[in-house]
């Protein structure tokens, strides 16, 4: 009996989550079928799905996404490594924090799209400029949240560490790092979602491949179903990546469960 009620609960939670997407799809469907919206502005779902299917079977969508994802992988990985390392340094060391703070805050004010022209001049329209845009976009949320997490470590726990003669490294691995971990994951999550924005944005401005390029190309050819198909693909992959990172986050911070 108990198991059954639990299953029913799970189903309800799931319905709760997918209700809005379903409503949106229904609204979309009726808006186009009834003719309230011109299919030139809002293509039918069936057309979009058809396009999605042919794009996938022809492999264009898959290869576009693969190119964009590989750019994200490079730029994001770089941002994760440098963001966490510098974040830890700035969180633990006041001098380092003051040294970098003004410069970083200033750089952060420039939207990543505004970086694109200068990065293209520096790196060309190839891979490097995309990776650089992704890095710049993902780096700051990761850095800021890492610094914040380290700085918010409870000084009372640090005092306990001193009481038990933990050396600097042990204080870091046993107190500061685990304490900052939930916050670091917030940064990793934010960084990943802005990576998508950055890569698509950069590809729309200057690129010869990638999902952002495909959307822009389709727009100039007035192939709106392709634009929609590309957007849907970005959204779906973004959600999947968010799930993956949430899963990793939960696995790495088991003590946070049930809080």
């Amino acid at each position, binding site marked *: 009996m108990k198991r059954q009620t639990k299953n029913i609960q799970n189903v309800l939670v799931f319905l709760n989550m997918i209700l809005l997407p379903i409503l949106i799809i229904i609204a979309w469907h009726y808006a186009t079928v009834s003719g309230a919206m011109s299919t030139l502005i809002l293509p039918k779902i069936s057309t979009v799905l058809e396009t999605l299917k042919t794009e996938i079977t022809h492999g264009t969508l898959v290869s576009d996404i693969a190119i964009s994802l590989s750019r994200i992988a490079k730029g994001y990985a770089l941002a994760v490594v440098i963001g966490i390392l510098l974040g830890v340094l700035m969180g633990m060391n006041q001098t380092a924090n003051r040294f970098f703070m003004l410069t970083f805050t200033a750089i952060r004010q420039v939207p990543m799209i505004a970086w694109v022209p200068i990065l293209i001049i520096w790196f060309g329209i190839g891979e490097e400029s995309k990776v650089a845009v992704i890095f710049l976009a993902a780096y700051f949320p990761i850095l800021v949240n890492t610094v914040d997490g380290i700085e918010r470590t409870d000084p009372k726990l640090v005092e306990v560490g001193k*009481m038990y003669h933990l050396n600097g490294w042990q204080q870091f691995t046993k107190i500061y790092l*685990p304490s900052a971990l939930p916050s670091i994951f917030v940064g990793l999550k934010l960084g990943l979602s802005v990576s998508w924005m950055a890569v698509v944005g950069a590809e729309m401005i200057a690129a010869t491949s990638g999902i952002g390029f495909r959307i822009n190309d389709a727009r100039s050819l007035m192939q709106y179903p392709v634009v929609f198909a590309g957007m849907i693909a970005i959204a779906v992959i973004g959600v999947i990546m968010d799930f993956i990172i949430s899963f990793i986050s939960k696995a790495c911070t088991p003590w946070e469960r049930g809080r």
Partner: protein
Amino acid sequence: MGKELKIRDVNKSFDVNGEKVKVLSDIGLDIEEGEFVVIVGHSGCGKSTLLKIIAGLETNDTGTVQIDGKEVKGPGIDRGMIFQEHRLFPWMSIEKNVQLGLNGKSKKEKENISDQYLSLVKLSEFKKAYPGQLSGGMSQRAAIARALATQPEVLLLDEPFGALDALTKIELQEELLKIKKRCKNTMIMVTHDIEEAVFLADRIVVMSSRPGTIKDIIKVELGHTRDRGGSDFAKYKKKIYNYFFEDKIVAPEYNI
């Protein structure tokens, strides 16, 4: 096991908004090996600061604190401390928390020691749990186990039961006495709970505030098993109470 403590002419001031505020003034106190001393005072009288100085977490401006003739220069594993909050690391299991001070021992040794002390505080079944899954009383027991695991000769307790409900508090006070009997540590506790002081202490140090000075030291001669409802117990309570709430000199009939 236990060590004697000598506190001599300890003074301490803090800077508060550029103003010097004296928190401890000429504190002198000798604590014998294996003794249970409870320091009672208003909050803000500097009693916790004194405890932190003994722990080595805070420095004294003048004076000395010696443990078995050796001056305290910083924290050391000869002293264990239990705080008002349990201060367990939320990301470590109870077992790992208890093993925190056991650096340089093998995994097996660490496990033996943590098992031993967790069973002492009756938490054996919860060793794999995280602190977040435990109640306040259980967390404080785990903190006691952690403090005992390094086998400190001096155990410092900073209002350890202050945040617990009344029943859990009584339970843990009794357990603390049992632990004291077994491990024979020297114990120094800070509290503002007069009943707690009379129940636990060999000697009660009464502190006044601003600046913190020792007003009086009272030897509690009630034996090992103390009856909270007994008349002698009540007399001690009244006597301590009078230090704080009546300025008149303690009446002769309470002079025990």
